Every structure is written in C-alpha cells, then in structure tokens.
C-alpha cells in the first residue's frame, strides 16, 4: 500500500491536514475549487478574540502547504469519490480521475445566504450588509453607507440563518456572537462617533477569551446590547432603516432607526460538500453537515473506511478548532495507512 492522500479543500483545515500529512511522508494532492487557497479566512480582516490579522494565519498555512510532498491544484473542484480495491478513485470537475489510498474531506462551509431572510431585506435595502461585506470594508478602512456617507448608527443582527428552523437551520453557528462583538468593537475604532448596537437572543461566548471580549465591548467601547431577535426591517423616507425587535429584557417592542445594518450570516454545509456526500454515499446529519462516525471519539471518521473529515465540513468551528481537527484527521489517516500496510 502507498501513502497517496487526496485532500479535498484548500481552506484552513485542508491546508493544515495536507501539511501534517506531507511532513509524515505522505504524497498529498490538494484540490481547491477557488483560484486561491485560504478559504473564508482570506476574506476576513481581523480575527477574534485577539484581533490577529487574518494574513498572519494565511502566512502560517501557506508555509504549511509549501512542501515537496504536496501537489496543489486550484480552480478544480472534486465531484465524487469511489472506493476501488482498497483505494479510492477521486473524480474532479475537469474530468480527471486520481487514485488515493486515503481521502481527507475538508470542504468547509458556505455562509448562509442572507437574502433568504426576506424580512431583513438583504439585496433590497442598500444599507443592509453581511458580516462578510463588513470585513471587506474593514480591509479598505472604509465603512460607508451605499451613498458614500459615514454611518452614525450601526446595528449588528445575530443569528441570521442560525437557530432558525424556518431558515432550515436549527443549530447555532457558534461564532457569530463573538464575530458580532469583534466587529462592533472594530466599527467603534474605525468610526469614533458611531453608536453600535448588537441585537442578540443569547450571548453565546463559549470560546477562550470570548466573554472577556464581550465585557471589554461593554465597558470600554460602549456597545449597546439589546436582547431580542430582529423581526423585520423597513426603510423610511430618509432612507434610514427601521429595525423592529422586542427588547425582551423590558418585555416591550422596540423600534430603532439604523444607518447601516450588518447581518451575522451563519455557517452551512457547503454546496460542494453536499455534492460529494451524495455521489460518494457519505452520511450527513440533520444539520446537513457531514456526520462523523462518532461525535465523541471519532469526529474525523466517516461511514466509509479511509475517508476522513477535517474542519467545518462537520460542524461550525473557529480557526483554532479547525486546525486542531485537521491535525487529528492527519493522525487518523496515518493510523489507517499504517494498518492497511500490515
């Protein structure tokens, strides 16, 4: 048996897994459907909780993947995996087929398409944007409304497409709360006079240093927190957005005018991942993400021996978790290849 491993996806988990496997002597082929590696991180400005520049992470991952044992194909998507005689045929979108002894699925996530929440008017009201749009504004150091003016009042809406069965997603995307807090603080830094509000259902600040960030946002940045999910958005004659929410802590409906509204889009199973799941017969869960063989002790294993998962293709994760999960996937792959050899 050889040590040929195909890694599907060149985001955080794919790059980390590829790097780990290459260092352990595997012959790794990475397929990334985009023209560049780096996944969603390359669209982000600063990262929570320490406000690290996302380019630092990309540099680390870039070094990882720059290895003699790694062949990288960008702009090529994987369409299917088929087991054949103890190894796998991996089919790519450009019509090629490559043989692998093991496969790491690291297809990541797609951001929830915020226009599906019709009541928020994304794609209809110009000044309703998403968290990803805001990161692009941070990078350009230009937080502007559609007409080019500087927003005075900015709202961040938590749980857009998460914890929302009507949007098809029962689960919590886990990272939007802390993203909102980070983004609120960054807005306050970019625009000194801006008033910033977070509309949340619960503050799910479960990660390392998240609660500390929340406290800092309250104490030093004066961010307003209003508990209640935004129910609908409209626009008035002055092109201000009118946000309706129940302030559940006073138990009363609340109306607020907002200049720029940022939707914290949740994480969903990627379309590419869905396609692979279907063609390869890989199990998916109720949340549509890939379903690990066991949630406790086999979170990298799939229902097909030799096919492993790394990162957010299994559930929403932050970068730290995606990297750890990818390393664990590499360990599982090595274990599997060693056993196959004997």
């Amino acid at each position, binding site marked *: 048996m050889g040590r040929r491993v195909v890694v599907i996806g060149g985001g955080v988990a794919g790059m980390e897994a590829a790097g780990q496997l290459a260092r352990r002597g595997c012959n790794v082929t990475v397929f990334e459907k985009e023209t560049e590696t780096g996944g969603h991180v390359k669209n982000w400005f600063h990262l929570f909780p320490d406000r690290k520049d996302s380019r630092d992470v990309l540099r680390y991952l870039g070094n990882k993947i720059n290895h003699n044992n790694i062949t990288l194909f960008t702009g090529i998507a994987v369409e299917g995996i088929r087991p054949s005689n103890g190894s796998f045929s991996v089919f790519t979108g450009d019509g090629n087929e490559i043989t692998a002894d093991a496969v790491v699925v690291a297809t990541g996530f797609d951001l929830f398409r915020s*226009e599906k929440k*019709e*009541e928020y*008017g*994304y*794609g*209809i*009201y*110009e000044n309703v944007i998403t968290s990803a749009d805001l990161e692009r504004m941070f990078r350009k150091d230009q937080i502007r409304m559609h007409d080019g003016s500087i927003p005075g009042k900015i709202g961040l809406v938590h749980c857009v497409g998460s914890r929302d069965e009507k949007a098809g997603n029962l689960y919590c995307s886990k990272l939007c709360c802390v993203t909102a807090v980070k983004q609120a603080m960054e807005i306050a830094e970019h625009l000194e006079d801006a008033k910033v509000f977070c509309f949340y259902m619960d503050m799910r600040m479960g990660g390392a240093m998240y609660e500390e960030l929340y406290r800092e946002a309250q104490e030093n940045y004066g961010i307003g927190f209003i508990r209640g999910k935004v129910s*609908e958005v*409209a*626009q*008035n*004659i002055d092109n201000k957005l*009118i946000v309706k929410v129940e302030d559940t802590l006073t138990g009363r409906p609340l109306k607020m005018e907002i200049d720029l509204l940022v939707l914290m889009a949740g994480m969903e199973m990627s379309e590419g991942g869905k396609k692979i799941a279907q063609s390869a017969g890989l199990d998916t869960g109720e949340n549509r993400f890939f379903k690990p063989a066991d949630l406790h002790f086999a979170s990298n294993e799939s229902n097909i021996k030799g096919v492993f998962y790394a990162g957010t293709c299994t559930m929403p994760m932050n970068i730290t978790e995606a990297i750890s999960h990818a390393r664990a996937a590499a360990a599982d792959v090595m274990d599997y290849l060693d056993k196959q050899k004997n």
Partner: protein
Amino acid sequence: MIEEGKKRVWSDYQKEIPDDHYFYVRSCIRQSFFPGSEQFFLRFMRDILGKDFFENPSHTTCTGIGYHADVVPFQTIQTVVARHFALMKESGYKNIAISCVTSFGIYTEIIETWKHFPQELEKVREFLYKATGREFDVPENMAHTSDIIYKFRDEIAAKAKNLLINKKTGEPLNIVEHIGCHYAKMFPKYGVGGAEFPRVLSGMIEAWGGKVIDYPERRHCCGFGFRQYLVQANRGYSLSNTIKKFSSMQPYKPDMVLTNCPGCTMLMDKWQYTMKEMENVVYGENGESIPVLTYEELAGLVLGYNPWDLGLQYHMVQSEPLLRKLGIEYDPDDKYKTSDGRQMPIPENMINV
C-alpha cells in the same frame, strides 16, 4: 431600494393563476360597502375578456367573521366551506375565484389543514353528507380575485384610458398598496410575490403607470382585527393601529391607498372619518383624507369607466381629489342618481368634497 432584489423574491412566489373557467364566490360586506367592485369584476371578465365566471345563488357567507370572532367553531366553518365546494362540484368547476381576503384565508387554512390532517377532511365529508346529502372535491386551483386582475394587468394597461399619472404634473401617482393579512401572511406560497414583498397590487400599480410607496409600516395590519373592531370597547386598539399605519405613510404624500381586502378597504376608508372626528387629523395633503380604493375600482378608472358606476360615491372618503389628479371627467350631479335617473338622498358632511 434595489429593484432586482425584489424581483428575486417575487420569482420565489410565482403562483399558478388559471386563465379561465372559475366558480366565483362573493364577499359578504363588499356588496354593501363597495357595490361596484364585484359587478365591475364580473362584467369585465365576462364581457370584455370573454371569460367564464359562474355564480351559484345558493352560495352563502363562509362564516369567517363569526369564526374570527370566536362564535363559529372550526368544524362548522369547514363544513360550510365544504358545502361551497359541493356547489362548485355540482356546477362542474375546478377553479375557485374568491372575492374576499378573509374567505381566501379561511379557504387556504382549511385546505392546508386537510393536507396535513386527512382525517379532518374525512370527518368533514361525513358532516356535510349527513347534513345535506352533498359530496365535494377540493378545488384544483384557488385564486383571490386580485390575483386574477393581476394576471390580466397588462391587458388592462393595453386598454387604458387613464394611466395612474397626475395629468397636471406628468408625475406618476404615489400609491400605497395594502394587502390583507389573510392573503399571504399565513401561507406566503398562496400569495403572488409572497408575504414580505407582495407583488399582487404593486404589479397592478406599476403596470398602470403609478409609483408604489414602500413605507415603514407597510406590513402592518389595517387595524380591523375582527374582535378588536367588532367589539366597541376594543375599537381603541383598532383605531390606534390604523393611526400608526397612516402616520407612517403620511410623509410620502400618498395620492391614494389600494387594497385587496374588504375589511381593510372598509376600515381604512371609514376610520379616516373617525380619526378626523376624534383626533381632528387627516393624513392626505391640503387637509384632505386619502381615498382608499379596491383593485376593481382602480382597474375600472384606468379603463375609463364612469366613477359613479364603479360606486366610488359610496365610500366614506370621496375620490374627487384623485379623479382631478387623474384628469377624469365626472358629473357631480350624477353622483347620487339611480341608473334610470332618479335622484337619491345626498349624504351630509362628506369627506374630501
């Protein structure tokens, strides 16, 4: 406002509206409050477009008002509606055209109930059979009559004598569209364009040359709310809702309000009188109130019908300011005359005259 975004939403809520052969069911209150509307609809469909709309004189109220006022139980109203379906079956029709939004909501609610709980449907079959000996089929297609006018909006535009343009300024009229809650809020898939950005009335307004106003409280209930309005002691809630809605549209200087629901038309029309009496406020320009029209009345004006044949004089808020903007000629002396020329009593203290 990004029009493309709205079009994307509308494309998700395309509803199949049959071209012809309808069993037509009337509204309880429209015939007295807006007597020209249903008449115009039937004449236009039958005589101008040559469509087949059948009415059965044994059709009754759907009892929706009683249902929403908690005096008619769900099983009773299901059986009443089942009887309508039986009349329809007996007349050989498969498409139903419903003139009332309350009824439309009742019909959709019942049909959805039967889809999810087939045992309910079987029970109702039994109730109806025991009570009347009748049997029924569930309609193949259900359209509100505003859906049907929407479907033929371009045909109306092609025959238009008056576009929705202010003749003096050449600017399109500012029109508020108000959709009855029970049209699509319960089941967005049954409404043209869904519930968030309904297309049914805005499509007509744009096809006929007007401009649709998107104001903050466009989704808000007119205030009718059945038991809020029906019980006198509760009417403060109803009126307060209506005031919220009119205050929100006021800055846009609407020339008129277009509605597709009998309750909304009635309430938004008559409550303007009440608001004026109680609070001394009007929401139109120049101290005037805002005319509230049904889609049939508006289609009739666009097609050049005589406003008095359309029944506009029976509204609380009179439409003369709107008619002047549209450049429609009318004879004030004919306003309260019967079709054979006899003078009827003239109401006192009319609004907007």
